[in-house]
């Protein structure tokens, strides 16, 4: 008798437990059966009536005024255009974004729309396509308007996987007033004169460069620009060879690039305590006029142009890490882009949204263009920020290199950053050690 009771209780418990997730279970079953079911949904001719909720996850920081393009404007304008489509957008800081998106994708719970980065690397379009998470969106009726490079960088296997936000340039924002104060009249054109500029600033009692080295990713900004001038100009296929196993990151050119990077610190041109300064604080020190230069990209335009304690005119130049007499190369790359989840159940709605969003004549596109901080890669959209003209011209002339990490597995850059921090921090790490660590990680992870 007692035993029967026991069994009954056990069953009841098990049942109550199951029913705890019961309500949703039904739902999930239909999801589990996959394709067949969602076709059923979309085949219904009432597609305009049936309400659809699209989820979108992007990285970055909310704009402070409550008029964030992705969080506020986009959902509102989509709703106005398609009354049946609700766009639920969420924005996370980069680090959290990476964690969250990967786990969600692995769990088959990814959002319908999310951000990916060009080529390979952490959340790279190629890596995620290989894993089968990105939908082929070549069929969207938007591509005629896009610059070829931006489309190629987001393609895998000849199929387009994401719509790039635009083009990003790396460079140096500089303080013209402080330059003047130190008696500097023109932008340096090569490495020697760049070091000269730094020295002049230092002699005038001005901190030449502020960096946010506490955020490891920040270290890439200067180094990639230097590498663009040292490693690549004579050897644009460096990374292709690297991937084929014919080159190595311990190549003397890379060592030299890191030596040059280190020179800035060794000579005291970079702000003291840079390892304790995060990127946000670095930016605010620049706009407060506490340092003359900052390595940063086009994406931080609004931040760096904001009014701080000091008022001054800004300039923007590519880091002239070239030898004298040679041309300066810029670091330029396709920005992150919006990709569509391969297992979305609302493929049609997403297509509608994208075709409206990137239709150059739509009001949404106009709003998006105005809010975007990247340089547009859509044909016919003029360069918005005059500040970038000089570097943009370098890019237009073909003298540019993508961001180096886009051809590496993600962990290579992470190890590089760790080693660079050690080097700057005076922990006896040499440039050779840095390249060795990078190369070892590359070899460990690169599989073709």
């Amino acid at each position, binding site marked *: 008798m007692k035993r029967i009771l026991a069994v009954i*209780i056990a069953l009841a418990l098990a049942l109550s437990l199951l029913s705890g*997730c019961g309500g*949703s*279970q039904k*739902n*999930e*079953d239909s*999801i*589990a059966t996959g394709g067949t079911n969602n076709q059923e949904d979309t085949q219904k001719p009432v597609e305009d009536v049936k309400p659809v909720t699209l*989820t979108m*996850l992007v990285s970055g*920081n*909310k*704009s*402070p005024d*409550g008029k964030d393009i992705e*969080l506020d404007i986009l959902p509102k304008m989509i709703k106005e255009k398609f009354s049946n489509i609700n766009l*639920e*957008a*969420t*924005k*996370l*800081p*980069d*680090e*959290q974004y990476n*964690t*969250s998106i990967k*786990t*969600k994708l*692995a*769990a*088959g*719970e990814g*959002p319908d729309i999310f951000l990916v980065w060009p080529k390979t690397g952490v959340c790279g379009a190629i890596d995620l396509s290989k894993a089968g998470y990105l939908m082929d969106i070549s069929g969207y009726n938007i591509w005629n308007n896009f610059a070829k490079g931006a489309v190629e960088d987001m393609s895998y296997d000849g199929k387009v996987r994401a719509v790039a936000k635009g083009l990003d340039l790396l460079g140096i924002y500089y303080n013209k007033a402080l330059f003047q104060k130190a008696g500097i009249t023109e932008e340096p054109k090569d490495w020697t004169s760049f070091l000269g500029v730094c020295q002049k600033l230092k002699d005038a009692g001005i901190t030449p460069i502020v960096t946010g080295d506490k*955020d490891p990713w920040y270290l890439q900004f200067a180094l990639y620009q230097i590498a663009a001038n040292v490693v690549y100009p004579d050897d644009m296929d460096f990374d292709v060879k690297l991937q084929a196993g014919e080159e190595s990151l311990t190549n003397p050119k890379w060592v030299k690039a890191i030596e040059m990077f280190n020179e800035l610190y060794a000579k005291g041109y970079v702000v003291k305590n840079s390892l304790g300064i*995060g*990127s*946000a*604080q670095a*930016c*605010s020190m620049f*706009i407060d006029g506490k340092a003359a230069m900052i390595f940063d990209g086009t994406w*931080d335009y*609004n*931040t760096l142009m*904001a009014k*701080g*304690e000091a008022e001054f005119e800004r300039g923007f130049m590519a880091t002239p890490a070239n030898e004298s007499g040679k041309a300066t190369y810029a670091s330029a790359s396709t920005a992150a882009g919006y990709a569509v989840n391969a297992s979305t159940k609302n493929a049609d709605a997403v297509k509608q949204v994208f075709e409206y969003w990137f239709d150059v004549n739509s009001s949404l596109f106009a709003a998006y263009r105005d809010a975007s901080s990247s340089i547009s890669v859509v044909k016919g959209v003029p360069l918005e920020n005059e500040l970038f003209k000089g570097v943009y011209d370098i890019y237009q002339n073909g003298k540019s290199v993508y961001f180096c990490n886009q051809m590496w597995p993600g962990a290579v850059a992470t190890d590089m950053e760790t080693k660079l921090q050690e080097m700057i921090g005076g922990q006896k790490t040499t440039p050779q050690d840095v390249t060795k660590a990078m190369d070892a990680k590359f070899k460990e992870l690169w599989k073709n």
Partner: protein
Amino acid sequence: MSKKDFPKKILIHTGIILFLILNMYPLIIALSSSLRSPNNMTSPLNLFNEFTLESYKLAFERMNFSRSLLNSLILTIISVAFVVVVTSMSAYPMARIKSNVSKFLYLFFLSGLIVPGQMVIIPIVQMIKGLHIPSTQFTPILMFVTCSIPFSSFLYTGFIKASVPEEMEEAAYLDGAGLFRRFWIIVFPLLLPATVSVIITQGMWIWNDYFFNLIFISKSSQTPLPLAMLGFMGDKENPTQWNTLFAACFLCALPLILAFGVLQKYFMSGLASGAVKG
């Protein structure tokens, strides 16, 4: 006390107050900054030189505070309720039956304490997917309950062993009450101090947790407070806006501070009774 003790007393009080001020200084600075307008960037050391709720207003809007608060409340309350039911039950046999099985279960649950969630999240997510449980607003509850099991079972078991005499049950047994009734009618009410302790210790971490929410919640309308708070992290767009950030910090902690203000006694005694008797 004699008059001689008077200077000594003053000394002690001054000592304590000094220590507490030092201890609280970062929070005081943050509080004072949060009460300034977002653009007032004069040195934070000038305490309380401005009083405005502007930064709070801004933070309030950006976090979508009322909705996030509601989401946090829902998550925390449901999770804690589950934790109390599930773990008080599990502690009962572990405390009452003296056998190797009991001992093993006790240690088995307790050992869960040493594994950090960050380490196992991917297999956990795969398991949840394998069981066809969808990612909704409520999925984090599964993890909150699971992660609360080790510590709560430990508390309850210790408490039952120490403070709930078996004799009380014997009478009920003789009256013919079944096991289930006996537990819920006789034992459970006696567990109140331990229950308070569980509610407070587990409620606090669940309220403050962002990790599981980050993994499972994907709609902005379902975001609880800590996740909304993350939106301020490394705020590149407005690097100088510490004031807003601090305001957000306090908004986020406010519900707990209020709860603490009202239920202070329980916070203290709850923590203590659980811990010392455990």
